[in-house]
């Protein structure tokens, strides 16, 4: 397993893919955090409350929703890319145990996802606190809360990346896998979560977003305002369980298919 994981890590390190996704995660987080910070406390209906308030600063610190989606897309790209670029043949020649390959990919993608989450959280915190300091406000959100949002972003990002690997292995067609991630986040969860608020915290993107403290949209998928977040451990367990279930489904179906 160690050899398989080292191989998967080397595969990721030797393309520009992770740097591109990292730039996307940081860039989108910076865009949302920057726009929200700049307009905070303004008259616009889209404006968040002033950064001098806990609500306003909290919104900026939790501008990491897109980064979570980027992590999931990254995971899906890593696994489905083997079929897009027809490299699966070589991969399975070197390691015929396909389930071992799937697990190795999931673990490595989760590790990279953690880095995306860390970078996104640092970006949101840096921009939010930067504006607070520049405007001479007090930091209205306790340090423990900031730390919890950051930890939520990091853990959720890693787990969504692993879930993406399972999804990409299940679907195999890269474009379809990426569309599935966005459709799930922007359409399915919005409809289901909006209609059934009580189950919204159990939906994967919503659970991940709430771990990261996301409450509003800012262009990101909305989290129902009435929904109560699951405890941190329960949300992490839900995402980890989902990753295992999707990967197990892939292992029993598409991963077994002939590679021709």
């Amino acid at each position, binding site marked *: 397993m160690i050899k398989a994981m080292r191989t998967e890590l*080397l595969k990721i390190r030797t393309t520009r893919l992770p740097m591109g996704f990292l730039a996307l995660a940081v860039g989108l987080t910076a865009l949302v955090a920057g726009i929200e910070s700049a307009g905070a406390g303004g008259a616009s209906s889209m404006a968040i409350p002033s950064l001098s308030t806990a609500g306003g600063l909290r919104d900026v610190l939790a501008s990491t929703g897109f980064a979570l989606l980027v992590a999931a897309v990254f995971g899906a790209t890593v696994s489905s890319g083997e079929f897009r670029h027809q490299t699966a043949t*070589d991969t*399975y020649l*070197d390691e015929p145990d396909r389930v071992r390959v799937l697990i190795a990919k999931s673990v490595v993608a989760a590790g990279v996802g953690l880095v995306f989450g860390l970078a996104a959280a640092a970006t949101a915190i840096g921009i939010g606190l930067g504006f607070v300091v520049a405007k001479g406000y007090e930091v209205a959100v306790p340090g423990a809360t900031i730390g919890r949002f950051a930890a939520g972003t990091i853990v959720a990002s890693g787990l969504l990346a692993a879930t993406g690997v399972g999804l990409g292995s299940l679907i195999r067609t890269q474009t379809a896998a990426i569309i599935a991630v966005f459709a799930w986040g922007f359409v399915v969860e919005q409809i289901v979560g909006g209609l059934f608020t009580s189950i919204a915290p159990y939906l994967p993107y919503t659970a991940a977003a709430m771990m990261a403290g996301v409450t509003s949209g800012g262009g990101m998928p909305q989290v129902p305002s009435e929904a109560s977040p699951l405890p941190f451990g329960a949300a992490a367990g839900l995402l980890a369980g989902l990753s295992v279930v999707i990967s197990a489904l892939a292992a029993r179906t598409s991963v077994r298919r002939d590679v*021709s």
Partner: protein
Amino acid sequence: MPLIEVRGLTKRFGGVAAVEDLSFAVEPGTVTGLLGPNGAGKTTTLRMLLGLVEPTVGVATIDRMPYRDLANRSHRVGAVLENASFHPGRTVRDHLRVRARGGGVGPTRVDAVTDLLGLAEAADHLTGSLSLGERQRLGLAAALLGDPEILILDEPANGLDPEGVRWLRTFLRGLGQDGRTVLVSSHNLSEVAQTVDGVVVLDRGRLVARSSLEELMAGGRETVRVRAARAEELRDALEADGGRVRLVADDRLEIGGLSVERIGTLAGELSIPLFEISTETPSLEDVFLRLTARQEATS
């Protein structure tokens, strides 16, 4: 003891049989051509041998066990398969580093195979920018990373220019002289005829010949061409003697199944003057085409 063995191998995709009850063996230290026209089942057979495609029926083994159960796989078997490719955003060197790590091969082999396959100058190029010939060389370089005793190559000459084909032929001959066991597929007999010790010929998923090249040639039927007076009378006599005769012009016959001596004797007995008599031995390519065409005619 065969090193590669295929027994009763069948693969059906839906209702279509890509490979049907195929059996053959490859002895150690030989270079064997797996030949057949496009769609004959060569690639599917090789993929079943390497555990990438699950047989519907039958077994394919390397050293008496399925590929996936082999220990030190990279040192035992190297493979280049059609429809396999490289990540276009990875350099040649990095591709080989990934394959080396995946196969448990030390990184020093990367430079060794890069030099061996003449890829040193392209080592830092992205694989997406390589020419077809360079891509074939890269595939071979990856297959040789573990310095394997067995090589399985699927249409390695595909897309190569004549110079590339000549290079490949020399390269394969060198592998054979090293004592490696090579199973190489091709739809073009001439590409491998000078390299292989024996051939397995497939058509429509079925085995149509398994022999050495010499045996294959010996099985090719000689045709005798005759220009004679009273050609129709001679035709009737030759057919009565068991020959397969075709009247190609008023005074010309093509005869199979009878020797020159027998034809001359029969013509003499009937006092039919012969103006010209010659034999035509089919080329290896003719034999190959006849084998596969015969299958087509009967299927």
